[in-house]
C-alpha cells in the first residue's frame, strides 16, 4: 500500500516556518547583559532525593536558532538577543547577581544549581570554556549541577570541568518530543532524536547524567495527540535520562503559538492532560516531573477554572512523591468535558473547546 508521504519541499517548509516564527522575533530588543534573565530558588526531586535548588537563566546572547526563526512555542528569544554574544565578565556578573539573591533569600546554599540560557551553556559561542570553568569552580561546593544544552554540544571535554569539580552533572536537553516529525513540523526544532540519543551516550560515558525536557502540546496537535506524543516520548527518553521534565505549553508573547491563540487556533493543554501523562508514565524508570508555568490562566495550561488549583497542587505532590495515587484524589465536572475533547477533537476542528 502506498504511503501518503506528503510531497512538499522540506526546504520550503522550513523556510515557511522560520518566516512565520521569525516575523514575530524581529519585533524585539535585548536587555542588560550583566543581569541574568531570571533566577529563583526551589525544591527539586533528584536521583538522590528532594533537594533545594537554585535556577539561573543566563543571558548568553540567546539562541542562534531563534534568530533564524526559532521554536513555535518559545518566546525566550525576546529576552536574549545580543547577537554578538555576552562577555566572560558579564556572564560572571550574572552569576554573582544570582548568588547575591540566593544569599538574601535562602538559609544556605542550594544543593542543586541549574543553569539555563534558552540556548546551550555548552556552546562555546554562548559560554566560553573559560567561563564554564569559572562557573564550575564557583559551584564546586554544591551537590549537583544541571546544564542546558543542545545535543550537538555534548562532548566529554566540555563536561569535564563540572565533573572534575566533584559535581554530579546533568545535561539538560530540550528534546520536546521523541517524534522527529512533530519536533520538525510542529515545534520547528532542527535536530533528530538520534542526535539526542548519541549525546546522551556521550554524557553517560563521561559520567554525567541526562535530564530530558519534553513539551506537552505543541501547536497543530490535538489534545489527545499531544498526550500520546508525551507518553511515548517519556517512555523513549527514560531509556537514557534519569529525570524527565514535562513542560505543558504556555502561550508566550511573540510566538507562532500566540498567533494561533489570538485567532482561536490554539488552546494550552488541560491540567488533566498533564496528570494523565504523569499517571500513565508513573512506572517508567526515571523521575518524571512537571511544573506547569502559568497554570490556571487562559494562556497557560488550565482546566475549567474551578479545579485548576487543586489539580496543580496534585501535580506538585506528584513531583515530590512520584506517586500517581495523588491524581485519584482530585475530580471535577470538567473531566467529562476534557474526556469529550480527547474523544472528539481532530486537527480539523481544533481547538474543540477553549
Amino acid at each position: 500500500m502506498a504511503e501518503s508521504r506528503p510531497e512538499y519541499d522540506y526546504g520550503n517548509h522550513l523556510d515557511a516556518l522560520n518566516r512565520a516564527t521569525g516575523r514575530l522575533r524581529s519585533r524585539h530588543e535585548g536587555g542588560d547583559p550583566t543581569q541574568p534573565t531570571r533566577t529563583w530558588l526551589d525544591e527539586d526531586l533528584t536521583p538522590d532525593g528532594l533537594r533545594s535548588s537554585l535556577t539561573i537563566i543566563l543571558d548568553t546572547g540567546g539562541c542562534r536558532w531563534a534568530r533564524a526563526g526559532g521554536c513555535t512555542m518559545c518566546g525566550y528569544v525576546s529576552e536574549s538577543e545580543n547577537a554578538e554574544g555576552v562577555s566572560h565578565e558579564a556572564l560572571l556578573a550574572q552569576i554573582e547577581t544570582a548568588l547575591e539573591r540566593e544569599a538574601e533569600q535562602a538559609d544556605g546554599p542550594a544543593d542543586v544549581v541549574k543553569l539555563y540560557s534558552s540556548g546551550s551553556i555548552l556552546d562555546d559561542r554562548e559560554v566560553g570554556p573559560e567561563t564554564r570553568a569559572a562557573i564550575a569552580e564557583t559551584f564546586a561546593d554544591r551537590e549537583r549541577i544541571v546544564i542546558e544544552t543542545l545535543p550537538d554540544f555534548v562532548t566529554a571535554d566540555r563536561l569535564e570541568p563540572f565533573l572534575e569539580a566533584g559535581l554530579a552533572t546533568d545535561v539538560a536537553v530540550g528534546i520536546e518530543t521523541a517524534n522527529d516529525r512533530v519536533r520538525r513540523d510542529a515545534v520547528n526544532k532542527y535536530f533528530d532524536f538520534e542526535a539526542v540519543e548519541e549525546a546522551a551516550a556521550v554524557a553517560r560515558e563521561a559520567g554525567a547524567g541526562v535530564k530530558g525536557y519534553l513539551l506537552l502540546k505543541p501547536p497543530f496537535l490535538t489534545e489527545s495527540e499531544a498526550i500520546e506524543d508525551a507518553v511515548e516520548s517519556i517512555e523513549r527518553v527514560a531509556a537514557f535520562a534519569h529525570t524527565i521534565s514535562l513542560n505543558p505549553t504556555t502561550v508566550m508573547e511573540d510566538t507562532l503559538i500566540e498567533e494561533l491563540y489570538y485567532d482561536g487556533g490554539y488552546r494550552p493543554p488541560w491540567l488533566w492532560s498533564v496528570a494523565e501523562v504523569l499517571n500513565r508514565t508513573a512506572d517508567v524508570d526515571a523521575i518524571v516531573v512537571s511544573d506547569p508555568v502559568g497554570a490556571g490562566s487562559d494562556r497557560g495550561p488550565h482546566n475549567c477554572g474551578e479545579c485548576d488549583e487543586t489539580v496543580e497542587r496534585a501535580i506538585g505532590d506528584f513531583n515530590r512523591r512520584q506517586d500517581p495515587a495523588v491524581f485519584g484524589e482530585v475530580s471535577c465536572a470538567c473531566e467529562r468535558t476534557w474526556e469529550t475533547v480527547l474523544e472528539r477533537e481532530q486537527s480539523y476542528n481544533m481547538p474543540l473547546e477553549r
Partner: protein
Amino acid sequence: MTEYFEVLDRDGPARRGELRLTEPRATPGLVGDTLADAGSLWAADRTVPEGDPAKLTVLPHRAFPAGTPADLQSAMDVPAPEIDGPSAAVVSPETVADLGTDAYVLSAPGQLVGHARALVETLLDVRRTIPDDAALVVSGIATPANVGLLAYAGVDLVDDHRAVLAGTEGRYLDSTGETFLEDRAELGCACPACQGPRAEFTRADCVDHNVAALRAELRRVRERIRAGTLREYLEGQVRHEPWLTAALRRLDQEGTYLRERTPLFRGSELLATTEDSLFRPAVAQFADRVAERYTNRFSDVPLLLVPCSAGKPYSDSKSHRRFQEAARYRAHKVSLTSPLGVVPQELELTYPAQHYDAAVTGSWSETEIQVVADRLRTYLERTDYPRIVAHVPEDGYREIVERATSGMDLPVTDTVSGHPTDGDSLSALGEALEGERTIRVEEKERATLRAIADYQFGAGAGEELFDELTLQGRYPRLQALDSDGDQLAALVPQYGTLALTLAGAHAWAESSIETKHVEIDAFQPHGSILAPGIRTAESSIQVGEEVLFEGPQAFGIGRATMHGTAMERSTRGEAVDVRHTEPID
C-alpha cells in the same frame, strides 16, 4: 467525481442530499460515526487508507488551525490521494481547491462562530471552489441555533461535538441559543431527557438533551428544504441571535451566488414578516425583472395604482373586483405592495406575486415607503403613461406615489377619500376614468402572455416569441399559438410562468433573445437529463427556468432542476426535467 454524494433538493443556497454509504445518511445531517479519519500528518506519517463503502474516509490531512499564516499553509499543504471509496479532503479557506473527493472538511471552523462576515465569506468561498455536488463538512460548531443558517450557507454535514461538549459544561442548547443550566428553573423542551424534574436533571441529561435538540433541528431543516421554506424558517429563527441575523442579511447581499441559486418559482408560500423580506433574493429577483424586463403595452390609457389585497391573485379579491367594477377596465392596473414593490396586472399570477403572505397592520415603515417608492419610480421611468390615477389609501401609499412622481411631468389624480372600497372613492375612480377607452379581455390576455415572456426570457421576448399571437383557452389556462395554429407555449396558472412547446423552443432558439442553453452528450433524453450528460450549461440558469438543450442526437426544451453551475459541475442528479424533445439526424 462525487460518486458517494448526491444533492436531491435545492432550496435557494441550501441543499438536501444523501451521503451514499452502505447505510445512506440524509443531509444536512450528522456525520456521526461514519467518518473514518486517516489521521493528521502533523502527528505522524500516514498510509493511504483503503476505501470503505460504509465510511466517509477523511484522507490524511494537515489541518491548519485559525491563525496559521497563509504562506505556511501553502508550504505545508498536502495532496489528496485518490482512494477506492467515499473520501473527504481537509481544506482551509486558503488551500481549498477541487480535489476530486466526495466531501470536503473545512478546517478551523471555530473562526466562523459569532462572526457573520467570516461565516458568509468563508463558506461561500469554499462552496464556490469545490464542486457543487460535493458535500461540505463542518465539524465541531453545530448547535441547534446555528445549524439552520449553516445549512442555508451550503453546509451539508456537521457533527454533535459542540452539543455534547456544551452539555458536559451545563450549557443548555435550543434553537434560540444557549442558557446556563443553573439559570433555568424549567426545561423548555419535549425530549425524553427533559421530562423529569428540574432538580434531577444532570449534565449527562443536558448532553442527551443537546444532542436530541440538534438532531431534531436537523430534521426540521431537512423538512424545510424539502418544502422549499428554509428561508421562511430562518426569517424567524435567526432573530434569537444577533450574529445569525447579521449572517442572514449578509447572505442576502451576496448577489450572484444567491441569485443563481434562487428558483424562478416554488410551490410554497413566501412569508414577509420582517423588513429583511424586502431584500431577500426571491423578492429582489421579482423587483429587478419588473424593472429591467417589463414593457408596458397600455401606454394609451392611464396608469391605475391600487393597493395590493390579502387575497391572491389580486384580481380575484373582493377589493380588486370592486376597483375594476368602478374602473371598468379603462386603465392599466398596477398594485403597490410590500415587499414586492409594483405588480403590473399581467404579472399577478407570477411567482411570488400570488404566493406571498405579509404581516399586515395597515401602517408602512419608512423603509417600505422608500423601497416601494424607488421601485415605482424606476417603473415610471421605464414606462410611458399619459397620467396616473392613484386609487390608494392616504397612509403610506400616497407618500409613495408622491416620492415616486416628484419632479416628473405626470399628472396624478387621487381618488380615495377614506377607504378605497368606500362608495365615494369608487365613484371618484369611475369619474376619473371618464372618457378613457376600455381594455378588452383579449387584449389583456395577450399582454399577459407577452409580459410573462418578457419576465421569464428577457426584455422584448413577448414580441419576439409571440409575433402574431393567437390565444386559446380560458384565462388563466391560456395557450399561445402562432399564425399556423401551432402551440408555442402554455401559461402555468399556479406559478404564472410559461411552459414552451417544441415549436416555442424553436422560436426561442431562432429569436434574438438570449437563450438558456445546455449542451448535452450524444443521447436521446427521456424524462430527464442527468448532470453527467451535460457538457456545458450557462451559469445564469436558475432552478425552474426554461432551458433549451441540444446535443449531437437531440434538441428539446425542459425545466432546469438545478442551477447552471451545478449542471456543469455535478456528477449526479437530475439537471433538466425534459418536456419535449426531438431527434437530430
